[in-house]
């Protein structure tokens, strides 16, 4: 078995006449953290939406975990092991941390169909373990989400992906709306996940963050991949040159 977790071949998405994504060839291996960078409208989020089946692709192939996959909806992708932290978080405001972590996959004591009895104790225990594993510090896990700061919410959302042994974590600008200290906390979690060998795709505009966390940077421009850079071979200025179109890697020359 190869250690490639996700691979796309000629992934393409057209919205009518708009070619939002054109022939994207991408792969990520076990234990790798890959950043996706690019200007607004470059196709980063479109790319993610095709992988997670929020939208259906126009053409191309997606290989996940060794299989050619065609997820019908985001839920199927999630069940297969692709966990996505969206910018709008997908947390229920009036529920507390364990309830949110286990939403839709609650632990139960007795199976009685929809009236299965919840196992609060086990969920609480697993939540504390999950938070510990990711290094998330939440003062009181019985607090409801509505009483938490943006950083804490983001941490809960990330902890959720980490609690369920996902095979791939995708984060769409996880720190874009956070303050300095909150960003640091989220980055800590990313480091922890990475050290545990979780493959992570990180969409970010934050160069420092990308350089710190990721092994590889894939640059999108006008719907195409224009560069695939190892962190060791590049620097911030170089990446910016690719983002703005001042440079294009040779193997992608046809794309520009």
């Amino acid at each position, binding site marked *: 078995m190869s250690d490639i977790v996700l691979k796309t071949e000629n992934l393409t998405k057209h919205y009518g006449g708009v070619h939002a994504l054109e022939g994207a060839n991408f792969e990520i291996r076990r234990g790798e953290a890959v950043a996706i960078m690019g200007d607004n409208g470059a196709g980063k989020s479109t790319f993610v939406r095709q992988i997670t089946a929020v939208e259906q692709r126009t053409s191309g192939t997606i290989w996940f975990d060794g299989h050619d996959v065609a997820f019908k909806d985001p*839920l199927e992708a999630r069940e297969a092991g692709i966990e996505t932290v969206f910018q709008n978080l997908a947390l*229920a405001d009036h529920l507390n941390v364990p309830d949110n972590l286990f939403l839709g996959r609650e632990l139960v004591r007795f199976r009685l169909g929809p009236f299965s009895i919840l196992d609060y104790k086990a969920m609480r225990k697993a939540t504390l373990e999950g938070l510990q594993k990711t290094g998330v510090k939440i003062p009181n896990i019985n607090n409801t989400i509505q009483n938490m700061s943006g950083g804490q919410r983001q941490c809960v959302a990330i902890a959720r992906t980490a609690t369920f042994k996902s095979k791939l974590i995708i984060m769409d600008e996880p720190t874009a709306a956070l303050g300095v200290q909150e960003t640091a906390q989220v980055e800590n979690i990313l480091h922890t996940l990475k050290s545990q060998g979780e493959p992570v795709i990180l969409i970010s505009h934050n160069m420092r963050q990308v350089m710190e966390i990721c092994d590889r940077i894939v640059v999108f421009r006008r719907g195409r991949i224009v560069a695939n850079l190892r962190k060791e071979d590049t620097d911030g200025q170089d990446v910016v040159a690719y983002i703005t179109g001042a440079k294009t890697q040779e193997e992608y020359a046809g794309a520009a």
Partner: protein
Amino acid sequence: MTDTTHGIGGLTFDTKKRALPPELGVALALVLIVAIFEILGRIFMHDSFLFNTRDSVDGLFNMARLKIIILQVSIIGIIAIGVTQVIISGGIDLSSGSVVGATAMIAMSFAQAGTVYGAENTRAVFFTQGWVDLPLAVPLLVGLLCGLVAGGINGLLIAYTRIPPFIATLGMMVAARGIAKWWTRGQPVSFPTESYAALGAGMTPVLIFAGVAILFALALKYTVYGKHTYAIGSSESAARMSGIKVARHKVLVYTIAGVLAALAAIVLSSKNLTAQSGMGVMYELDAIAMAVIGGISLQGGRGSVLGTVLGALIFGVIISGFTFLKLDAYYQEMVKGVIIVGAVVLDQWRQSRHSDRI
């Protein structure tokens, strides 16, 4: 333990200081209202509202009054429990009063006695004599089935056509009232069998109300059903992205509300020993009001069965209190209106103060 006392950015967090449960506020309001009636009673009626002042009866409290307070709200209370879970899920059910009317008519027509005062029941409607004196299970199951169908249709409409719950249940409200009138062409149905009449006799409605309340208090707190109901009301998109089958769950929520309205109809027609097509008019609004007074948020996601039970008791106390003070029913409705609005204003205020604390 320093980790647990400091939040992000060095914010301190006092684990001992928690927001008070909203039910506590409702309970305090209940005590306050009882106290007001007690004081007004002492001043104007020279009698106690709550306590026993008769030498001929033993006991500290005026048990007769306490019984009436809870008995007169227990039937609408059963509906209110169903409405509570609908509101928590982020919806509304306007059809319950009409479902009560239709179910009462239909169930009662299967519960007619063959003989009345020793003579043949010549006024039995809809069915011939061969269909009288049926075992209790027949009207009971037929009645509950009516609620199941009505609630099920509500749920299917809301979940799969995506029309607002307000409209779907408004449609059912009008249609079910039509069915109630059409069933016997407007004629009331009376003289139920003894077994049917026993369901609403004495304090039985209170026992049924209490049973339903306890069952649903537990279901909402300790089952997956309850958790998903809160989650959908809190954020439907989050619930969907978490893999909850939102449409299926909504059908279940509205179906249960319909069944509880039907149960209330059976108890009501049994208690009154008759069913009329106008039964249950405005019950849906009283049920919603009980829930709202009890702290159930109309935005969904918040509230509990305990709150609704307390809300129902506040209703009962107000009705009894006004009767006790020999005040007209007109004032009663005015005060009820003020309390409903007041409860929501208080809740909004409490919520906004809550969210400012981040």
